């Protein structure tokens, strides 16, 4: 092999490594460094103090906020997994032509390529006090008064997150389902397996890597979310991301940084946990 051929992969990988190094690795190290700094109401000071962590870890508010964020993560994960799996299953096993599969998959993907903020705003005319749903419910005589909990509530937060993040579950599961050898399913049926048995003994085990990747996406997106929580709860609910965003807007960067380090640790532990249960290397 010539020298250029041996050098080629390094030159090709250099831009990627450079960008991720400068804009991901170094910023994360900066967060770690600043989390030990001191601050007042105007600026931050280089120092080595641990009270940012003490304030974060020994505060009842932080723990409650973490529990609340984890609650959102679990609920949204369960719903997106259920919805995502069946949507992917329908596309993979019930749609017979590749062209139709592609079209329907694109139909699911297009909203993902539009603005999250607009998609959140779009729930207002539907869920609001005078919104479509409340008008319909009142008119049908199901409720006497418009329901207040539909918009600006934890219900709205979960609904919006499911709306925004289900595609992250659909895509990887669809990808794994498409790779399942159809002969396996035929063989299971020939051997006398019922539809339910095929699902639980053949399809689900083979879909695990896709489910794991989707779960990693959804859980990390929910754990770091602040804009959905802020907007859809109308300030009535909390999440770690929102707590950080508030600290950032008060210029308490070291406190936000300590929070960020803790959040990153929690997210990485969850991801490592998922990867322990399911081996996704075959997928990549």
């Amino acid at each position, binding site marked *: 092999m010539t020298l250029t051929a041996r050098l*080629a*992969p390094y030159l*090709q*990988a250099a*831009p*990627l*490594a450079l*960008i*991720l190094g400068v*804009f*991901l*690795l*170094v*910023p*994360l190290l*900066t*967060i770690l*460094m*600043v989390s030990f700094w001191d601050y007042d109401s105007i600026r*931050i000071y280089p120092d080595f103090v641990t009270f940012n962590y003490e304030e974060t870890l020994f505060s009842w508010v932080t723990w409650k906020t973490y529990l609340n964020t984890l609650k959102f993560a679990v609920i949204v994960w369960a719903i997106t997994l259920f*919805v995502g799996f069946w*949507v992917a299953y*329908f*596309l993979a*096993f*019930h749609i017979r032509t590749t062209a139709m599969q592609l079209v329907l998959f694109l139909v*699911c993907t297009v*909203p993902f*390529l*539009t*603005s*999250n*903020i*607009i*998609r959140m*705003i*779009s729930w*207002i*005319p*539907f869920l*609001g006090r*005078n*919104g*479509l749903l409340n*008008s319909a419910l009142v008119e049908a005589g199901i409720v006497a008064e418009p329901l207040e909990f539909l918009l600006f509530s934890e219900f709205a937060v979960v609904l919006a997150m499911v709306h925004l993040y289900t595609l992250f579950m659909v895509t990887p599961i669809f990808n794994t389902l498409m790779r399942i050898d*159809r002969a396996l*399913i035929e063989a299971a049926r020939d051997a006398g397996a019922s539809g339910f048995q095929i699902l639980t003994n053949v399809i689900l085990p083979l879909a695990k890597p896709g489910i794991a990747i989707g779960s990693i996406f959804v859980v*990390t997106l929910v*754990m*770091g*979310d*602040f*804009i959905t929580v802020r907007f859809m709860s109308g300030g009535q609910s909390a999440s770690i*991301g929102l707590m*950080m965003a508030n600290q*950032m807007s008060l210029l308490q960067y070291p406190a936000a*940084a300590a929070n*960020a380090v803790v959040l*990153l640790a929690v997210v*990485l532990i969850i991801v490592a946990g998922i990867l322990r249960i399911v081996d996704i290397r075959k997928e990549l």
Partner: protein
Amino acid sequence: MLSEHRGPGFYILAAFFCLFVLFLYGPLSTIVILSFQGPDGGLTFPMNGTSLRWFANLFEQQAVGDFGGAFTRSLTLGVMVMLTTVVVSLLGGLAFRRRFAGSGALFYLAVASLVVPSILVSLGIGLLFQVTGFRPQWYTSAFGAHLTWTLPFGLLIMFAVFNRFSPAYEEAARDLGASAWQTFAHVVLPMITPPLVGVGLFGFSLSYDEFARTLMTSGSFNTLPLEIYGMTTNVTTPVLYALGTVTTGFSFLVILIALGAIVLVNRRRARAGAV
């Protein structure tokens, strides 16, 4: 399932799928309808007449702040991110076809880029610029922040492409005397154009709509999502929906252009193959 006749399972899942699509598009269509609200109409139904007033309102400075400027910045940034994502992911994808020292570490770094919450990237880059004394700007810090989100996606798409790419074509080209560059430009590149268009579409759209990563990194000028978010707190007229309709319409247009380009490339290739 794979049987000849559609069982009840098909109809239940088809209904479920339709509900899912309705769930995805329903709310979006209400704001499109409400953006044509009459001059005295409010943020919810009923429609109080119809008008184009709120669209006209978009272009008056005092009504919505600097919509034109924010749009131009988001558009420029989106194109910058798109071009960078296509080139860098393509190069990265090519690099990973061979083993090289550090490939494992780089791969994990790319995956970490997807897993690290957006707000951390935002905070980290914001702090890095502050500590080093650089001023954050949408075309420097926000540009980098967006790339940490678009590049891993682009790279994963390129992995999927090259996993299915047979080296036989390149070997054939080389046997016929093509140089490495000729092989790439005349054999590999034309074959992977459609997925590259897809990478470009992802790069543009993800950047154009990105909020969390821009929050701490955009500097003194807002991008469009930041501008829209600002509006949600102080604008209480349907002009908000008009803006939503226009930007979503623009996103759809971009998607259509990308899909059109892919179809065109495939057709041309089919024709060339037939000759």
